[in-house]
């Protein structure tokens, strides 16, 4: 079993001596030509071994490192005891989507970063264990039917069906509210369905999560663009007692360099939407076309850039990834960078695009880049890349994909009265309650934080559900204890700053 057999007393392996359990994966050469999931997940035996590595710390750092404070040692303990049903119950106290989070959270920056075991050895593979428990539930567990409180007779509208919207809707439904999600696209899931590719997050998982939320009684209205089909003000006038805005930050950013409107230049959003949501990788069985060409340049270094690069690779292209800083600063999940390298993505680090050069007919031919070197540190503490004079270089390409970030889409916010925005067009919401400047309206996820993570969006959905419940019951949005806690932590932070 776990390699430690306490009862037989045969051999006792020290926990710290067990190496971190590798996860089975598709071979790089094989997976580079298909869209199936790269990681195959732990087997029962592997999960038992990995779970046994956890030191069960008294003051677990990992819990503090988790944005939603999952009781990590507790769920790992359940797995060690071969009780995945208990593990999943513990996980679900804090996260609605363990199958998603286990796959896409940047664990190396969160729980696993601070895991005590990681100080001298490798951290416990917390994300992989989370995924194991969730996958076990999907394949073998009994669908737990949660308790739904008696109907409260109040109606809540949720805008957007990404992780923030789904979580908030699910929690409110369990509390007995009548909840409707309004989603602009024809499929629910937000970035999980249109952005993150199948080979990293199978769409069947997202679909299952959406169906679960619907099974709680949430009504899902697709094809509904808030700001066009209906405004937030109309929602409030039309019987919604509260509204949660979770429309993400989906407006693509371009670099504003010459040549960006040539044919063959995509935003990562367009490229990934065609591939994922519209299933262009199955053209012509699916109608939506995608044009990849033989050579692709992807600009950027985040998860979005890795996803675009690896999608282009799977569609048959050779891919250059162009990023202006160095390997250490690549913001993508480390596992994705590693996978991208294994699959043969050509990394051009410390390289910045200057312009795109096209042919007579308006098609991309080349991209001109310049080498960068690291100069002085900027305000974020990172060394700022500066161009090396005379190092310009042209790379012949057929397609360029801009993956340099997204901003708030003004479509909804512009049409909503009295909604305070910050200078980036993001909605201003109270950090602890997610209340906005508009009565009865709450906001969370990427539309408040700017492009962030699935787990933060999910956490925001939970906070919003709590606040909306209190609001609709006429209670203060924060309890006296919570107020005290916040004050204490602020004072502590202020003292620390001195």
């Amino acid at each position, binding site marked *: 079993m776990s390699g430690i057999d306490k009862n037989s007393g045969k051999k006792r392996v020290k926990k710290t001596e067990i190496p971190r359990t590798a996860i089975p994966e598709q071979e790089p050469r094989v997976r580079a030509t298909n869209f199936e999931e790269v990681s195959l997940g732990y087997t029962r035996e592997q999960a038992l071994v990995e779970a046994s590595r956890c030191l069960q710390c008294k003051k677990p750092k990992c819990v503090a490192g988790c944005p939603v404070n999952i009781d990590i040692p507790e769920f790992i303990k359940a797995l060690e005891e071969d009780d995945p049903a208990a593990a999943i119950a513990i996980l679900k106290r804090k996260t609605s989507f363990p199958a998603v989070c286990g796959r896409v959270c940047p664990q190396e920056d969160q729980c696993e970063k601070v895991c005590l075991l990681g100080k001298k050895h490798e951290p416990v593979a917390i994300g992989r264990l989370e995924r194991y428990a969730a996958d076990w539930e999907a394949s073998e567990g009994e669908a737990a039917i949660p308790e739904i409180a008696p109907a409260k007779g109040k109606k809540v509208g949720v805008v957007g069906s990404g992780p923030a919207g789904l979580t908030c809707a699910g929690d409110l439904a369990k509390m007995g509210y009548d909840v409707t999600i309004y989603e602009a696209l024809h499929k629910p899931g937000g970035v999980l369905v249109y952005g993150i590719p199948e080979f990293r997050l199978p769409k069947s998982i997202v679909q299952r999560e959406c169906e679960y939320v619907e099974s709680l009684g949430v009504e899902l209205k697709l094809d509904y663009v808030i700001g066009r089909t209906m405004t937030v003000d109309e929602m409030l006038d039309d019987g919604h007692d509260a509204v949660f805005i979770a429309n993400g930050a989906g407006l693509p950013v371009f670099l504003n360099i010459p040549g960006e409107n040539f044919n063959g230049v*995509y935003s990562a959003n367009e490229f990934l939407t065609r591939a994922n949501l519209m299933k262009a990788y199955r053209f012509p069985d699916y109608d939506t076309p995608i044009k990849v060409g033989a050579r692709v340049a992807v600009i950027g270094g985040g998860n979005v850039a890795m996803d675009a690069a690896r999608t282009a690779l799977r569609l048959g292209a050779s891919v250059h990834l162009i990023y202006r800083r160095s390997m250490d600063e690549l913001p993508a999940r480390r596992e994705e960078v590693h996978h991208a390298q294994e699959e043969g993505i050509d990394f051009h680090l410390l390289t910045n695009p200057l312009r795109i050069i096209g042919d007579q007919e308006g098609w991309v031919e080349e991209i001109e880049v310049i080498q960068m070197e690291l100069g002085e540190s900027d305000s974020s503490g990172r060394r700022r890349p500066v161009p090396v004079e005379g190092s310009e270089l042209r790379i012949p390409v057929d397609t360029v994909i801009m993956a340099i970030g997204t901003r708030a889409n003004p479509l909804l916010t512009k049409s909503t009265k009295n909604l305070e925005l910050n200078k980036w067009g993001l909605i201003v919401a109270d950090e602890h309650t997610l209340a906005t400047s508009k009565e009865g309206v709450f906001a969370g996820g990427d539309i408040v934080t700017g492009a962030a993570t699935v787990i933060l969006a999910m956490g925001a959905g939970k906070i919003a559900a709590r606040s909306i419940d209190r609001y609709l019951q006429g209670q203060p949005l924060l309890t006296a204890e919570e107020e005290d806690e916040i004050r204490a932590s602020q004072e502590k932070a202020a003292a620390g700053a001195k």
Partner: protein
Amino acid sequence: MYKILEKVDYSDDVYMQVIEAPAVARVAQAGQFIVLRINEEGERIPLTIADFDRDQGTVTIVVQAIGKSTRQLQELGAGDNLANFIGPLGIPSDIENYGTVVMAGGGVGVAPVYPIARELKRAGNKVISIVAARTKNLLLWEDRMADVSDEVIVTTDDGSYGRKCLVTEPLKELCDAGGVDLVYAIGPGIMMKFCCKTTEPFGVKTLVSLNSIMVDGTGMCGACRVSVGGETRFVCVDGPEFDGHQVDFDELMARQRQYLEQEKISYDFYLECRGDAQCLA
């Protein structure tokens, strides 16, 4: 599911459908469009709202079959359902009393011109419409346009009906005569480009409705981008109407050709396999 309530073929390639979509009809305005998807495998295609009826909860579209999706749509009739119908999208036309407006519609472009002309007429404008087509049986909605116009000029390229000339000829005459306060030109890219070239020397403001390639229609992908006055704009959220004198039509038309190769594959595949489940599988 969105039900098709009525379908009328105007010619072999041009047809009209009335679709049940109360949420869209409730707030639809002249100048806006919808995005539809026929079925699960379908692409999202944008079409202008040619008419709407708030009481009946219906939206009318007029379509020219030019490829796979628009041909497949043509084969659907009353009683059939569409998977998705999203809207109204885009910024509505700015309806005011400008004085005298010339409404130039080319081909199926006449359909989107119609609701705008109707509203402008209601707002007190003198409406002169130019209804243009390549040939007589492609001519659209002359009667409807007559209902909302003070004067209608019909042109066909081949002279099979009305005046034998391009849409730009009467447009130039009207500008020459003076007193035109605003021009709307809607139709194929090339037609809009030349209408703008015609009005530019007269300094008559000319609005066009652009038909760039789109995916979501909500500002999320950037597929629809076009240069207007040297700046990149998204047609689906910043438009679809723009000041035609500022639009880079050559870029627009080049970008419309992005998928020619794939569109042909898709169309041939469809024609070959039409209705044949085995072939499609």
